């Protein structure tokens, strides 16, 4: 008797990591960020001139072999100040949004999941913080605690919490009603597990996208605060304070304001470009929904 053999070989291809063209812009942006970060980290060991040494005879000197990018209005080496300024701008720009991400994200997740009185309290207090003029807050804190990088970071971090809280809460509210959360509960998951394993991986995606935006905005805001004299204390350089100081000599030496502005612009742009590409690459929901 003939036997009929049915081969049940269902070929399921292993998940293919599609190699996608990342594009020239992404690579340029990554290279720029790597260069800036390396320079900022290695600044103390690089053969740079002291960014605080003044040379009153060489004020606003043009580009030369001794001062590659010239000197500022107090005769300090512009290149050294740009690189040391990057340290401040990047430190503040990265750490402050992390404070916002951690605290705001956690509050938003909890508020969106537990609802009730806790949510009212969180949303209410965040509204108070949002309604409070940020400049007055920055003034008050620097007046009491003094001007320093940690204080500046804390101010900008706290000011970022409400925005992160709102993003996290909005995402959690829509997700917490989805069936997979009820399914997880029906399978005996505890609140902690639902929050950390079911909701957080979903909520973190919009939060990270928002984080990169936060980095860009914080670097600019730090610049604005330093420009107003609320940022880093004077002899120290940050890109914002350099733009502020360069303003006095815009007519004679516009490069003093433009060089840090270009650095700021390129870095913020690079963060956004890299952030967008990374999000598109890592989002497992591509093509879904």
């Amino acid at each position, binding site marked *: 008797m003939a036997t009929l053999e049915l081969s049940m070989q269902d070929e399921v291809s292993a998940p293919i990591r599609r190699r996608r063209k990342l594009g020239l812009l992404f690579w340029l942006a990554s290279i720029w960020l790597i260069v800036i970060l390396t320079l900022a980290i290695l600044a103390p060991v690089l053969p740079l001139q002291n960014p605080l040494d003044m040379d009153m005879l060489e004020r606003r000197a043009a580009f030369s072999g001794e001062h590659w990018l010239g000197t500022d209005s107090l005769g300090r080496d512009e290149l050294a100040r740009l690189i040391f300024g990057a340290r401040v701008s990047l430190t503040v720009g990265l750490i402050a949004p992390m404070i916002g991400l951690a605290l705001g994200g956690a509050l938003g997740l909890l508020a969106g999941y537990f609802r009730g009185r806790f949510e009212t309290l969180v949303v209410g207090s965040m509204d108070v913080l949002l309604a409070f003029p940020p400049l007055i807050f920055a003034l008050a804190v620097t007046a009491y605690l003094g001007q320093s990088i940690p204080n500046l970071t804390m101010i900008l971090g706290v000011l970022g919490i409400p925005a992160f809280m709102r993003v996290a809460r909005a995402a959690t509210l829509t997700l917490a009603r989805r069936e997979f959360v009820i399914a997880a509960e029906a399978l005996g998951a505890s609140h902690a597990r639902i929050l950390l394993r079911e909701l957080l991986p979903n909520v973190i995606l919009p939060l990270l996208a928002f984080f990169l935006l936060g980095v860009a905005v914080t670097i600019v805001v730090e610049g604005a605060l330093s420009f107003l004299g609320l940022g880093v204390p004077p002899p120290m350089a940050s890109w914002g304070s350099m733009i502020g100081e360069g303003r006095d000599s815009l007519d004679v030496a516009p490069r003093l304001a433009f060089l840090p502005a270009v650095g700021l612009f390129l870095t913020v742009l690079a963060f956004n470009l890299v952030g967008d590409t990374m999000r598109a690459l890592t989002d*497992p929901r591509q093509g879904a929904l």
Partner: protein
Amino acid sequence: MSAPLLTIDNVAVELPTPRGNLRAVDHVDLSLEAGRTLGIVGESGCGKTMLSRAVLQLLPKKAKLTGRVMFDGQDLVRLDAERLRRLRGRDLAVVFQDPMTSLNPVLTIGTQLMETIQEHLELDAPAARKRSIELLAAVGIPAPEQRLAQYPHQCSGGMRQRIAIAIALSCEPKLLIADEPTTALDVTIQAQILDLLAREQRRRHMAMIIITHDLGVVAGRADEVAVMYAGRVVERAPTQALFKRMHMPYTEALLAAIPKLDTAPHTPLPAISGRPPDPTRPLRGCSFAPRCRYAVEHCREAKPELKSAEMPGHLYACFHPIQMVEEIGT
């Protein structure tokens, strides 16, 4: 005869709404023995999902639940949260209607399966992984090992429902609640999924509740069928008895509303006219009376209680059950 695994005793669920209290489940009594299948049938909004959520204690926070749900000797209504959590997933599992939303979109299938297994069975990661592969193979997923690394959106709807079933079965539950498990699926997949559920049920000797709006789904697969209307059980019988001789006009209307292949083209479907009564304004009489073609004045005045028919185990709530109407007509 052993005590039933699940006893739903006089369970009522009320939901506060701006228009007054909505009685989603109206004093329902049901019971189910280990290894048996109960089908709960009714149209949308008749309270079948709320009843299943009441069993799982997953009702919305505002809902008021009265009555008792005895499962395996414990009253789930009065069980503390921690004990209940341990029971869910391990002894009590559920498969939801829509496999598109019942799986987490950003976690791999392997993660979702293994988490439940590790949580309840206290296995280490390699053992949980091995068990996940076995489970996926058991629910008929080809190349299960590769599937573990995939995300839900990379699978088809039927595939996802199989995965959801695998997750539900992962800890050998004593009771599986399938809440419209095939409603969101293609007709050709429906039978496969139902057969899969039936096969796994026999193999694991678990009790199962199938909730559906389709009498055809329960016809060959449930041991007993309960028909719900407006939050109440209006007819309950062993499946054979129900299809041989249904007493409740609503059941008959439900059956008539299923499209058949042998009807001539362009025949209008005998849909049930009207709509279910507003659950915030309970009727004085039989809740089906406004839509029932046999209703008389008495039906609108008094509410019929569930009573036994001549067949043992067959209950119905109607003053004028169908075959008697026919007798009057002749």
